[in-house]
């Protein structure tokens, strides 16, 4: 680099990275912090207000515990406790699918990473491709298929498709291929372990972190799933909470004036429902942030 170039570069650095440049960047970042934070903070505060207070009071002043209790009562009294049933359904679907996902994915990822069999490569490529398609893309095709076998409306119509979780298999595959040396398995075989014992006694105990990771991802994705249950479950009793929110929304006069009636839902109650619908996932996020990030980056390798 010539001296002239260097001089120009220094001058430019002064002009953009000087304090005015820094201030602009800081302001922009601050705006984004507000953009990400305000809706969440406000949502939490909204659950502690009355319907009237929500509109007239300062949006960022906490309300009263009494209002929170009243909202709670209205929410869980909605359609004779429908919300409790919806949360229960969500738990059933998410946990049911979680168990099947683990039973299916962990051994499959293990076998694909550390054993040889025909179609191994085919299965691996299929896994990669399906993993990268958005999971909504197959919902209507799966509906058309399950409609033929008459499963629509049954919990299985949600649990079984959710259990197909190629991303979990991929994560397990990556983990076993990078973290468990084949020599270890060979040693166990020499010691007289059968193939099944090699898996249960040697590989599985080493796989605790990946089991937890797959479980987290599966749970979060299934709990938040909207399109699949929306399509598969026609009756309100079977809704998970994510779909139940649409019923609550339809009964909120503020958004849907035709719904005013005995079963109407006030805005703070709807806010409380929103909070409750994400609570389990929010807790997972708070405690497993590092985990989740590790899993997302596992999608790719560096050059």
């Amino acid at each position: 680099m010539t001296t002239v170039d260097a001089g120009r570069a220094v001058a430019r650095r002064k002009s953009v990275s000087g304090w005015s440049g820094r201030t602009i960047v800081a302001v922009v970042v601050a705006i984004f912090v507000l953009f990400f934070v305000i809706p969440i903070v406000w949502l939490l505060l909204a659950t502690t207000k009355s319907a009237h207070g929500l509109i007239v009071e300062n949006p960022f002043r906490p309300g009263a515990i009494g209002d929170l209790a009243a909202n709670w009562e209205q929410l869980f009294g909605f359609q004779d406790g429908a919300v409790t049933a919806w949360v229960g359904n969500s738990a059933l679907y998410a946990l049911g699918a979680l168990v099947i996902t683990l039973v299916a994915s962990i051994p499959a990822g293990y076998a694909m990473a550390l054993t040889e069999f025909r179609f191994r490569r085919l299965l691996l490529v299929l896994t990669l491709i399906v993993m990268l398609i958005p999971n909504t893309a197959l919902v209507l095709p799966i509906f058309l298929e399950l409609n033929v076998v008459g499963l629509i409306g049954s919990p299985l119509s949600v649990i079984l498709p959710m259990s197909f979780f190629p991303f979990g298999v991929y994560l397990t595959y990556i983990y076993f291929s990078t973290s468990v040396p084949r020599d270890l398995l060979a040693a166990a075989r020499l010691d007289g372990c059968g193939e099944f014992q090699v898996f249960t006694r040697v590989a599985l105990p080493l796989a605790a972190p990946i089991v937890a990771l797959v479980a987290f991802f599966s749970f979060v994705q299934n709990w938040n799933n909207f399109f699949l249950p929306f399509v598969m479950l026609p009756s309100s009793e079977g809704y998970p909470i994510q779909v139940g929110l649409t019923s609550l929304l339809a009964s909120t006069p503020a958004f849907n004036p035709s719904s005013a009636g005995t079963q109407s839902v006030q805005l703070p109650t709807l806010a409380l429902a929103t909070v409750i619908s994400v609570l389990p996932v929010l807790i997972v996020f708070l405690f497993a942030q590092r985990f989740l990030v590790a899993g997302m980056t596992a999608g790719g390798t560096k050059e």
Partner: protein
Amino acid sequence: MTVTDEAARSAVIPPGRPAGRSDGGERSAMSYAFIALYAVLTVAFGILPALYSLYLAFTDGDGGFAGIANFTKVMSDFRFLPAVGHVALYLVIWLVALVVLVSFLAIVVHAVRVRWLSRTLRFVFYLPGALAGASSVLLWLFVLDPTASPVGGLLRLMGFSSFVQVIVPANLPPVFAVIAFWTGAGGWIVIMYGALNNISADVIEAARIDGAGTVQIAWHIQLPMLRKWISYMGIMSLAAGTQLFVEPQLLSQASNAIVPNDYSLNQLAYQYAFQQNDFNGAAAISLLLLVVALALSAVFVTRGGLFERG
């Protein structure tokens, strides 16, 4: 990182067949047992539904071969092109915002030297990811309703005094883009941050000695090194964005159908299946969307280089 990669590659591509031929039979039998359940699920919920849609899309209601009649029918439906337009406009706004802002925010957060500040920023950006699907849409219904909104003043400043004014059709693509960005950007910022951490400090230091400023380093070194991750983000988001469903569906419900219930392609497919009982038409639209998603995914698996282990 490089070390583990090497290990990974050598683990995946073993030099020869594993030793111990004598029990090879038992071993591969056991492998089939390990993959059996997953293979069944793959067939039942990956391959079969795709094939069945293929079958439905090319047959008529009575099962007779229909050629491309279903495709011409849905494509000439007066709702089809507008739906494509809506989704396309939303995608353009969202993807541009995602690429520009995520790269910018990741580089800024990475430049923050104060550790707790950098960690807090990442956490704050990331947290909205917990609210997905219907929950985040409901939250944004509140935020966009000037009477209840925490930023009602801002909305009124922009000339909106009622919810109905905010969600006029022309505003929807940016509105959906904002919701999607709010929910999804944080995860990508954290990923980009991790990728930036992998750029060797020596390279940055050398550039600095050569007189490069922060902006030049970002532009000439950091951004090119992020390119692979940015294209990963772009392709994943493009594929996911074509599936737009829950946002317009809920808005349509919340707005008393000011937002039509056939705003996006997936909604149109849903209308075909559930309002018109035309499964062949629904299958045709689903198949079009599936082909787009599959093509993007396949391009990425074969060309992207991110999955070179496979």
